[in-house]
């Protein structure tokens, strides 16, 4: 039940915040609803559901749900994948698609999947090159060239 209480509390706080912001945007009147009207209704709905689940969670004296969600065990992997994507997003314009893709795939294979460099590097190079040819050259997706702009 502890898990339910935490999740419901999160949604309740979220709904309070959005309701307040929607109110500030302006609810206007029912015959001419303002910009805050629709999000206010949605936020109040979320708040009511969260409150009902929270009350239910507090009232039912069930033992603590100790079943693990497996988040702790895989947190490192998940954070690693997210960090890789985030770095990619920030470096894309500077390094360009080809270099960024090579680094991302090599990083994932070596550090997330624990493959040897001898497997990670050729695979990353092949993926970077093939995806460049497919998306950039064939589909003309206009991906950033970055540092390798001089190549074009």
């Amino acid at each position, binding site marked *: 039940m502890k898990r339910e209480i935490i999740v419901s509390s999160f949604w309740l706080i979220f709904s309070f915040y959005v309701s307040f912001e929607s109110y500030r945007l302006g609810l206007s009147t029912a*015959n*001419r609803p303002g910009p805050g009207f*629709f999000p206010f209704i949605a936020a109040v709905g979320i708040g009511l*559901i969260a409150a009902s689940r929270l009350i239910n969670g507090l009232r039912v004296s069930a033992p603590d749900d100790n079943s693990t969600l497996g988040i702790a065990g895989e947190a490192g992997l998940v954070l690693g994948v997210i960090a890789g994507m985030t770095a990619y997003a920030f470096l894309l314009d500077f390094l360009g698609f080809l270099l960024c893709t090579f680094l991302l795939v090599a990083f994932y294979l070596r550090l997330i999947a624990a493959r040897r460099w001898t497997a990670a590097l050729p695979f990353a190079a092949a993926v970077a090159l093939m995806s460049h040819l497919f*998306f950039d050259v064939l589909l003309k997706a206009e991906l950033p060239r970055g540092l390798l702009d001089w190549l074009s």
Partner: protein
Amino acid sequence: MDTLYSLTHGILTAAAPLNLLYGFAGVLLGTLVGVLPGLGPAGAIALLLPLALHAPPLAYLIMLFGITYGAQYGGSTTSILVNIPGEASSVITCLDGYAMARQGRAGPALGIAAFGSFIGGTLSILGVAYLAPVLAEFGLRFGPPEYAALMLFGLTALVYLAHGPMDKAILMALFGMLLASVGLDPVTGQPRFTFNFLVLRDGVGLTPVVIGLFGVAEVLINLRSEAGEIFQTKIKGLLPTRQDWKDSSMPIARGTLLGFFVGAIPGLNVVIATFAAYALEKKLSKHPEKFGRGAIEGVAAPETANNAASCSGWIPLLSLGLPTGSVTSLIFGALLIHGLVPGPLFIKNSPEIFWGVLGSMIIGNAILLILNLPLIGLWIKVLQVPYYFLFPLIILFGIIGAYTATGNTGDVLIMIVFGAIGYFMRKFAFEPAPMVLGLVIGPLLETAIRRSMIMSKGDFGIFFQRPIAAFFMGAALLMLLSPLLTRRRLGHEIIEKLEEQ
């Protein structure tokens, strides 16, 4: 006669080389994502949304539709051979399909699944061709209150049939609607919840959200998964025997009808159709004890029903402009990208697209029937590819998809955020489908409600005074309130029993 003429014309349009090529790519890709557990048609379509900017509209839509029904074929292959359903709609096929494979009858199981899918899919398309234009005519009578009521009904139906608790599904739908309100207000132009981020001024884009929720989140969930163990069996005799056909003909006929009607009702989905078809066959069978132990009827009925439902599921979207789930929401978005507005006027305004897509579905089903059986060996090989080679590719395609939609790295960051949100949603058992539907229909619903309120001068009674609106509102309220009275949701008992089995 008009319908047959239009459909024939649609088939000829779909048979044009470029359309055929896109259609072929679509069904092949669909089968591939159907085979691969962890990447469904929604994820694949999301990854391909940005391609809309470069591809011709009809060819592009033919490809997206091909992915949806191609995935149904692929899902059955893994259910039968590996006991791993590539798609939720093939879960029930595992029961008898895998048992047949164990008994050395993998060939007939795969064969009847392919033939059933072809028959169910093709007949269902004919049903769509006749029913959708009629419904569209009816939809012309709709004003803002009717549309608002219909959208609320669709959303309620999806919530009602959600796997988990109904209140959690409602919460997700409301969260989706809140996300839809981010950006400039459609009436006053005032920024809402943009936090001074330029990327949020145009709203939270459907493409990065969906790629995050279905692509990235799936990767994060499956990071520790291994490739499935393949049951080694020789696949011989893919053509079912005379006895197999005798046993399967009625289940295929019933599966087609059931799948068609279940799929056409907003909110019901392909998974429900398969469970219902299986339950019906078991109930009607003279030897129900054989079900779960390799009864061919247990493969034929659900596999037929899932393709029939997958095709008829387009009726609400194409005739009324109502998306009913994640995949239809994405196609809704793809149509909008091309300036095509799904709704009652869609068939009238864009007949070449409507009939072309229907024609392509008939061709696509035939391609799948011919192509799939010889390619089974290849799909098994695909299943053996280690996940650590697949996940960087899925992530990379996701990033490219999110980036090329607008050419803005801000959308890649939105994708990452929703990937993380999707990961936690799955861990805490919140379903993404109602959220996506809320996000897609949120702006339409908001506009319809605001217009209705202006029409009625602030009287909410407008939704209950006009007959069509009152009907949909009544049905929605009934679905919302009925679990309070019966303490159960209709149909859930069957699903739970079968899931236990």
